């Protein structure tokens, strides 16, 4: 869902009421991006606040309403990368706790955690493309804009990511229940 051009224009004029509406519309989405990029719920909440605050300060750098999602995602990438760097010790010393479900609407806590576990084990560039293409439903061209890579690279990462995900899913859920990639590739 792209941003309403009128709302975008009002936000560029620093209309606080418009920003409040934009924050309400985008809080859940930015939070979801952050969680599926590997942050815990509390970290994702903090990152989402930071992303939206940066968007407020730098909205002048976003050229048009049509580019808003791409621009916002690029901010999210940087903020999430910084947040992950801050908890480097968790990966190094392998002190990861069992993650808690982050969503109340969705496929349910068990499947949510299984999907997040598989995404976390994928190479980061493949997981990112799966998140944008298969979870968020952006086209390959849109994903290419969002991550700053050619569409061919996106297609390649998507193919590799899906294959890897299938393998991980089969290992994690040998009963084959609810394969997340059961549908045909477009």
């Amino acid at each position, binding site marked *: 869902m792209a941003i309403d051009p009128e709302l975008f224009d009002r936000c560029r004029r620093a209309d606080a009421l418009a920003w409040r509406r934009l924050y309400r519309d985008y809080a859940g989405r930015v939070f979801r991006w952050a969680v599926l990029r590997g942050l815990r719920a509390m970290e994702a909440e903090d990152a989402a*606040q930071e992303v939206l605050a940066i968007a407020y300060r730098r909205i002048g750098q976003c050229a048009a309403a049509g580019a808003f999602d791409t621009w916002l995602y690029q901010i999210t990438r940087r903020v999430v990368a910084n947040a992950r760097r801050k908890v480097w010790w968790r990966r190094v010393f392998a002190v990861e706790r069992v993650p808690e479900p*982050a969503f109340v609407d969705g496929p349910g806590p068990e499947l949510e955690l*299984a999907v997040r576990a598989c995404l976390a084990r994928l190479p980061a560039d493949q997981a990112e493309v799966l998140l944008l293409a298969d*979870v968020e439903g952006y086209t390959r061209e849109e994903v290419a804009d969002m991550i700053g890579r050619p569409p061919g690279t996106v297609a390649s990462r998507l193919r590799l990511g899906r294959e890897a995900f299938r393998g991980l899913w089969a290992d994690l859920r040998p009963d084959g229940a*609810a394969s997340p990639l059961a549908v045909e590739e477009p």
Partner: protein
Amino acid sequence: MTAPDPLRALAEARPDPAVEHRIAEGAMARAMAPRRPVWPLLAAAAAAAGVALWWGSRAQPTLPTLPEIRVATGVRYQVTQGADAAFQVARESQDQTVVELSSGTATFAVEPLPPGGEFAVETPHGRVEVVGTRFSVTVEARCTRVDVAEGTVRVRREADAFLVPAGQSRSICKGGLEGEAVIRAALDDLAAGRVDAGRGRLEGYLVEQPRGLFAEDALFHLALLARREGDAAGARLAIDRFLARFPTGHRADRLRALRPAP
């Protein structure tokens, strides 16, 4: 039976509405907060620029900025906008002037209104109506503060309205009476020994805003209150009620330690 598609199902995944609310409010607070300088170099550069400006301004003194004066039909008023004020006239007619202040501070001096005349300032949190006065309105992340210098203003939010006389300030917050102001008032009541009044405010907030931004605070203080009153069963119930919603964090740890044994 077709297997579900969890990856795509995650597209509909949303956090708890309270989390979304906290993200939006936190982002608004961060966005509006003054930014801290990142590099000491910037501070040094700013100081150097300041010295340069001061040096340049000695030869050509600047005049003070005059307040902007607007005259509406039937209503005369004067407004001084802060540098950060986002201000516009929303509606203007023969006997009505409504201005919209979406951020920052603006100070208004309004001449006595003609019979039936109306002058109001609308902010994201509510509406300030003039009775004939001089007052400031400051829009902050969560609340709008009204400081009245002369006369009286009526502050209105949805069905609630109250008069603010000269020399007093009042804040209207998002969530109005069920927001931060309610929690503060409840804590004031409890500190002053008005236990029933405090409990009533906290319970009232939870009834009206069960997923509100301050639900955690309300539940926490109700649990502490129950514990303090020595009713073991009531304290267990209140603490369990808190832990069911907010199972982690230092407040949860503290309440677990305080929970009376059955």
